[in-house]
C-alpha cells in the first residue's frame, strides 16, 4: 500500500521534476555566465504561463505551439532587461561610470516631488492613465540618464545590486501583467486523454510537458556541445579572457546568455501550463523562484544540465518524502516536504556546493 503510493508519487515526481528542471535551466545559465542570481525568475515563468494561456484562449493554439512564441518573447525581454538594467552592473569591459552630480539628483527628486504634489489633487479616473504615463516617463528618464552617463562601473557586480535589480524586474513584470489582465487566477483546459499506470494516472499533457522539457534540455546540450554559438558561450563561462583572445565578443555573449536564460525560463512557463494549466495569475511565480534556487543548488548553481538533473532529484525527493512524512502523526506532511527540501538545500550547500553531479 505504502509502496504503491510511494512508487506512484515517485513517478509523478519524476515527470514534474523534469519540468522543474527545465524551469531552472535558465536560472543556472544566467548564474553561470553572469554570476547573477535572477531573483525575478518566477515572474518570467509567469510570463510564459500567460503566453500559453492567451494563445490558447484567443486562438485555440495548443500550448506545444506556444513554445516558440514564448521563447521569442523571452529572448526579447531578456535583451531589454539586460541592456536596460543589468549591463551597467555586470559588463566585463570598460572603465568606470561617472557618478552623477548633486544637481541631477536634486532635479530628479524635485520633479518627482512635484509630480506627487500634482497627483495628490487628481481625480481617481485619471489615476490609471497618470500612473501609466508616469511609469513610461520614469523609464524614459532612466534611459536618458543611462545614455548620458554611459553606465559602466569599475567594481565587479555586487550581489546586492544585481539581486535587487532582478527583483525589481520581477516586480515590474508582475505589476504590468496585473494591470493588463487583473490578478484573477485563470486557466484553460487542454485535455487529450490519460495514461493509467495502476499506481498512478498520468495525463498525456503531463507526459508531453515532461518530454518537451527533456527535448529542450537535450537540444540545449547539443547546442552547447556542437554549435559554434554554443561553444562560444561555454568558452565565456569557462574563461572569458580565453574567449576574448579567440575572437568571441564577450559582451555580446553576456547579453545573449542572459536573454537565452530568460527565453528558456519563459518557455518553461509554457511547459508548466501543460502540466498545470490552472491558477495562472501575475503573482504565481514566487514559489517557483524559491524552488528553482533549491534545484539550481542541487545541480550546481552554474550548470544548466545540472539544473535539469537537480529538477529530477527535487521532484523525486519532494514527492517521495510526502509518503514518508505522512506516516507520522501530528505533522503536516506537505509542509514538511517543503521543510525537508530546504534542509536538503542547506546540507548540499555545506557538503557539496558544486552540486550533486560534479565529482571533486
Amino acid at each position, binding site marked *: 500500500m505504502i509502496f504503491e503510493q510511494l512508487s506512484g508519487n515517485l513517478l509523478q515526481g519524476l515527470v514534474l521534476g523534469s519540468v522543474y528542471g527545465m524551469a531552472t535551466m535558465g536560472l543556472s545559465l544566467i548564474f553561470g555566465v553572469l554570476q547573477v542570481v535572477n531573483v525575478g525568475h518566477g515572474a518570467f515563468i509567469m510570463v510564459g504561463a500567460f503566453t500559453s494561456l492567451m494563445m490558447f484562449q484567443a486562438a485555440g493554439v495548443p500550448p506545444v505551439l506556444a513554445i516558440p512564441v514564448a521563447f521569442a518573447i523571452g529572448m526579447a525581454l531578456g535583451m531589454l532587461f539586460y541592456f536596460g538594467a543589468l549591463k551597467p552592473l555586470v559588463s566585463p569591459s570598460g572603465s568606470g561610470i561617472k557618478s552623477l552630480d548633486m544637481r541631477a539628483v536634486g532635479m530628479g527628486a524635485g520633479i518627482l516631488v512635484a509630480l506627487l504634489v500634482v497627483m495628490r489633487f487628481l481625480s481617481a479616473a485619471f489615476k490609471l492613465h497618470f500612473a501609466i504615463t508616469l511609469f513610461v516617463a520614469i523609464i524614459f528618464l532612466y534611459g536618458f540618464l543611462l545614455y548620458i552617463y554611459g553606465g559602466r562601473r569599475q567594481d565587479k557586480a555586487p550581489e546586492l545590486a544585481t539581486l535587487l535589480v532582478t527583483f525589481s524586474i520581477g516586480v515590474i513584470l508582475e505589476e504590468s501583467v496585473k494591470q493588463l489582465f487583473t490578478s484573477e487566477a485563470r486557466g484553460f483546459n487542454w485535455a487529450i486523454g490519460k495514461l493509467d499506470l495502476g499506481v498512478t494516472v498520468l495525463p498525456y499533457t503531463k507526459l508531453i510537458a515532461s518530454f518537451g522539457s527533456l527535448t529542450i534540455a537535450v537540444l540545449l546540450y547539443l547546442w552547447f556541445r556542437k554549435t559554434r554559438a554554443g561553444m562560444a558561450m561555454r568558452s565565456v563561462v569557462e574563461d572569458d579572457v580565453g574567449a576574448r583572445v579567440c575572437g568571441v565578443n564577450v559582451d555580446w555573449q553576456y547579453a545573449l546568455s542572459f536573454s537565452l536564460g530568460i527565453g528558456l525560463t519563459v518557455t518553461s512557463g509554457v511547459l508548466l501550463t501543460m502540466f*498545470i494549466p490552472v491558477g495562472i495569475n501575475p503573482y504565481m511565480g514566487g514559489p517557483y523562484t524559491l524552488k528553482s534556487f533549491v534545484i539550481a543548488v542541487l545541480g550546481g548553481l552554474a550548470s544548466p544540465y545540472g539544473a535539469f538533473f537537480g529538477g529530477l532529484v527535487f521532484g523525486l525527493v519532494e514527492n517521495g518524502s510526502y509518503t514518508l512524512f505522512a506516516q507520522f502523526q501530528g505533522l503536516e506532511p506537505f509542509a514538511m516536504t517543503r521543510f525537508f527540501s530546504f534542509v536538503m538545500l542547506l546540507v548540499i550547500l555545506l557538503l557539496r556546493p558544486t552540486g550533486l553531479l560534479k565529482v571533486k
Partner: protein
Amino acid sequence: MKKRGLILLVVPFLAIAFFVAPAHAVDSIVIGHPAALSGSYAKAGEQAVGGVQAAVDWVNSVYGGVNVGGKKVPLVYKYYDCESKKESVTSLLERLITTDKVTVTFAPYSSGLTLAGAPVAEKYGIVYMDHGGASDKIFTQGFEYVVQTIGPGSSYHVGTLEMVKKIAPDVKRVALAYEDSEFARSVMDGAEAKARELGFEVVFKRTYPMKVEDLTPLLSDLKASDPEIVIGGGHFQDGQLFNKQMADLDINVKLLSLIAAATLPAFGEALGDLAEGVMGPSHWEYGVTFSEEGAKAAGMTWIGPSQDEYVALFKKAVGKDMLPDYHAAEASAQVLALVLAVEKSDSVDSDVLRKTLGDLTFMSFYGGWDIDDTGKQIGHSMVNVQWQKGERKIIWPEDAQTAKPVFPKPDFE
C-alpha cells in the same frame, strides 16, 4: 551660500505643508479603506474596492444620498493601497482617520491585515468594518469597534454537510483537504466538528501549504483513503489546482466542494468540463434570489440595488468587464449597513453608530445581515453553488435554489 540657506528654510515649510493636508468637507459621510490592491491579496482587494465603489454610486445616484441631520448627504469613498503589508495598514488607517477625517473605516482583506488595523481603529474609537477577515478569533479579542460582514470561517462547509446528510443519508466517508492557512483551517475545524456531529466518518484530514504548485502527493494519499465526498480548498489558485489534479488522477467522488475558488466565475472558465458538478460554499452568488419582496415577507428591512442592477454598477465602478464575486458583495453590503445605521441613528458619531450596527438587521441583494455582541456576523447564511453545464447554480439551501443539486457529481471523463 545664501541660496542654500534659503532652501534650508523653505524645505521644512514645504514638508509641513505636505504633511498637513487640507481639511475635508464635513457634510458628507466618508468611508476610509486601506485596501489591499497589490501584493498577496490584490485580487480580493480589487473586488472589494469595486464593490464599495458600486454601492457608494448606488447610494449617491439611486438612493439619493444618506439622510442625516435632516438633509441628504453624499457618501464619499477614500481608499489607499496597503500593498497587503501590515505596517502600511496602520499608518494609512491613521491617516484616513485623522487627516481625511473619515466617518467609518473598512478593513483590508484577510484576517491578518484586519487584525493589524484593529488596534488603530480601537485607539481612535472609530467603527472598523470587516468584510474580508473571516477568522472567528478576531471577535474573541475584545475589540469594541470591529463589525463583521463576512460570515465566520467555521460555518463555511456546514451547509454542504447538512445537504449531504439530507439528500444522501447513506454517504459516510468524508475527506478534508484544506490549505494550511488560518482561514482555511477554521473552515476545516468547523467542517470536522459538523461532520462528526452528523455522523460522518472522517477518513482523511490533511492540509497543504499556501501557494502550492502541485497537489499530487496529497491527492494520491487522499485517493487511497477512498472517500465518498471531498471538501477542502483555501484560495483561488489552489482550488483550481485541486480540481484539475483530482481529474488528472481520476479521483471520482460523489461530491467535491471547494471553498473560495469554486464559487468564482474564473473557476469554470479555467477548468471547463472538469468543473462540472463541483460545489462551493459562498457568501453571495450571482443568482441568489434575495429580493425586496422576500425581505418584506420575512419582515426585514430591505436596502440596496437588485442583483442585476448591482452587477451593472460594479462593472461600471471597476471600468472592466469583470463580474463581482462575494468579496465585492460583502464590501457592498457593508456600505449598505453603514447607510442604514447612519439613517437609523441620525448620527455619525462612532459610538452611536457602533451601537446601532449592533441592533441592525436588514436584507439586501447580499442576503441577511446581523451581528452579535462581539461584532461577529450571524445573520448571513451561506449558499452552496454547483457548476452545472458551465453555469453556477445555487443548489442549497433549498429556499434559494436555482437548480436541483446533481448528486453524485459526474465522474471526470
